[in-house]
């Protein structure tokens, strides 16, 4: 082999390894620099085709796990334990990648990577709304019933599992979850409201003592979908038929009651500006002592109890979200992170091995204790050590069990856009509740049509 050829080859192998070119490109380039097709393929096999070379650990298989942002170091510790135990025995080495602060940055990273058929990441942590969408693009592998039997799945929270399931297949393993909670001021109201009507009337009668009755997330963005489906599910309504996600069932009396209730809040028990609020902007109003009730995720609990930034430290508690109409139970929307397998990664079995480890009681328990994250294994919420570390978890268990995912659809981004648009217009009173729901209905039918 002549020197120039050697150098060119080194270069493309380096690029291949660092994930900058795909297998196809690799082959094309190898052939252009004068390598025969079969030689290029065998070279590719020799490189392992794996993009990441952690090098020097002697493991046969190197995997990369890209997680969401995790600041306590627990994910690193979990990865280390895996590498020293199961990984050591089976010749697998996992490298953990810290995630960016903004979840959106990660989705852009993933879509760019996967559109390029790249496998620089083997195991992806993805937000609950993406597994089914990624599956529709063939970007991730389904978890088979043999890998994760149905009996085993039953030990985990039903909502997150449902959120990762489409057409009978599960596309990612729910690792941790997040739910909408009702925060209320203990010093202003004696007990949390059971129904949305009660929340509205109590909010009305007490709001003079705070400033506003209720703050939530009404801006036109993903959070509005969560807020809407929580009220909708509370009234017993649905967006898509859970048994047939190509059927739109959003234009119902329940939905009309739910949306009419939300519209009545804007400028009533909620400030007009609630239609610009996202999670953190509503939290700031709440922490300033300006609201009786707030809908938010569990993260606001710790921050609200920090006296250096909160005026209401120790003065509030959390409860399940209310219900309405003929319904008798409230349902929180589910957020959270799930582990999926890149379909361009050649290490299918090893990827599952790592995910399986992350689902085991030991890893789930460690995550709950060390990182205070709400994991998906139900038994963790009965563990005395977990409960003593996170007293809030005791309250969370029933709420988690009743939580429902957002509509599950391979076209979720479009479904979400449409919900955001029509609900927002109704909240701004640009269109009536009935018009909003009927045009949402028409729109969704077009989007989810098989």
């Amino acid at each position, binding site marked *: 082999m002549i020197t120039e050829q050697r150098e060119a080859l080194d270069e493309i192998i380096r690029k291949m390894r660092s994930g900058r070119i795909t297998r196809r490109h690799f082959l094309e380039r190898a052939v252009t620099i004068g390598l025969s097709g079969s030689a290029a393929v065998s070279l590719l096999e020799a490189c392992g085709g794996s993009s990441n070379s952690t090098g020097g650990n002697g493991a046969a298989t190197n995997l990369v796990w890209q997680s969401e942002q995790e600041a306590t170091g627990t994910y690193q510790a979990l990865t280390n334990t895996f590498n020293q135990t199961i990984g050591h025995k089976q010749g697998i080495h996992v490298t953990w990648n810290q995630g960016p602060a903004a979840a959106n940055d990660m989705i852009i990273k993933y*879509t760019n990577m996967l559109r390029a058929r790249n496998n620089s990441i083997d195991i992806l942590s993805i937000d609950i709304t993406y597994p089914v969408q990624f599956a529709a693009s063939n970007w991730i592998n389904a978890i088979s019933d043999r890998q994760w039997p149905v009996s085993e799945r039953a030990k985990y929270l039903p909502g997150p599992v449902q959120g990762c399931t489409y057409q009978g297949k599960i596309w990612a393993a729910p690792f941790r979850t997040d739910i909408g909670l009702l925060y209320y001021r203990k010093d202003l109201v004696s007990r949390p409201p059971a129904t949305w009507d009660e929340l509205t009337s109590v909010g009305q009668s007490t709001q003079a003592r705070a400033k506003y009755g209720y703050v939530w997330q009404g801006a036109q963005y993903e959070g509005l979908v969560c807020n809407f489906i929580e009220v909708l599910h509370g009234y017993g309504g649905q967006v898509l038929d859970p048994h047939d996600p190509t059927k739109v069932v959003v234009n119902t009396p329940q939905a009309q009651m739910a949306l009419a209730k939300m519209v009545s809040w804007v400028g009533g028990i909620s400030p007009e500006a609630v239609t*610009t609020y996202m999670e953190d902007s509503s939290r700031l109003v709440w922490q*300033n002592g300006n609201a009786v009730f707030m809908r938010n995720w569990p993260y606001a609990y710790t921050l609200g109890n920090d006296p250096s930034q909160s005026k209401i430290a120790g003065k509030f508690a959390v409860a399940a979200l209310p219900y309405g109409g003929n319904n008798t139970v409230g349902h929180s929307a589910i957020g959270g992170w799930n582990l999926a397998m890149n379909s361009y990664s050649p290490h299918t079995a090893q990827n599952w091995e790592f995910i399986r480890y992350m689902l085991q009681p030991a890893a789930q328990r460690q995550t709950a204790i060390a990182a205070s994250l709400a994991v998906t294994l139900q038994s963790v919420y009965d563990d005395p050590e977990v409960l003593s570390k996170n007293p809030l978890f005791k309250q969370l268990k029933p709420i988690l069990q009743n939580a429902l995912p957002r509509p599950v659809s391979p076209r979720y981004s479009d479904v979400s856009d449409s919900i955001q648009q029509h609900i927002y217009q109704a909240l701004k009173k640009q269109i009536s509740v009935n018009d909003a729901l009927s045009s949402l209905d028409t729109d969704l039918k077009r989007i989810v049509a098989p």
Partner: protein
Amino acid sequence: MTAQVAESLPQEVTKPSLRERIRMHGGYLPYLLVLPTMLLILVIAIYPMLDSLRISLLNNPLLSQPSFVGLRNYTRVLSDPVFITAIGTTIFFMLISVVLETMLGLGIALLINKTFPGRGLVRAAILVPWAFPTVVSAQMWLLMYNDQTGIITYILQSMHLLSAGDTLIGSRIGVIIASIITDTWKTTPFMALLILAGLQVIPTELYEAASVDGTSRWQRFIRITLPMLKGPLLIALLFRSLDAIRVFDLFYVFGQRSVPSIASYANFKMFAGTAEDFAPGVAATVIVFLFGIVISLVFLFLMRESTSRN
């Protein structure tokens, strides 16, 4: 020297070949000098512009074998009520902000078209907003528009222009007004300086002659200043209009998903939607470009009108 002589001769006499003409003018050197720039512009500006036309006719350019779908992406965005509203929003923003910036810019230019102690400092102070990144300016103004802690919200609420608990950026018209305010704040200085430069080349003798005739200040402004400024003003207006029609940062920050401009609508389509939304997003960017061409043609017509009348 020879070049000038050649040019002054009547055309029928010489009619040199292209090669001769190039040799008579600066030779090949000037072409070599502008070559890097022209190549660069060709590759990084012209090529993407043309490529956007191609992409806008495909189903999904990110697939390995995208297919041609004709004008489907255009009909798709043009039948989206959000996009139609975005066009309205953008045009409204453009008209109001450009007019406002020109009038205020003219006012400020007249104000500082006169030496006074500290004029340099004043000029530097008004230049400060111009130097800031638009997106950072938008974030700074966002702090002032905030419904709870913003000073502008507080002022508007005390004046009862805004109901308690509301915010300027809570409604479509509010977002447009907020964008106009911020854009005016940022761009008026630039306008003022351009107009000032135009003012300073108007011969003082014109004013002197006029004041001898006993005309009022207003009359002199209408009869001398404005006509003399017409050329520079039209060019400045053209630039501002083309800049305003592509407005992105302000609506990205203030309007977010609910009140997009054409450009921020296109951005959300391309980068925050599904893979199938990418090509319609590119079609929306082509529409921004078409608007730019229409605006340029209108101004070219206006400029031709004004020069022919003179």
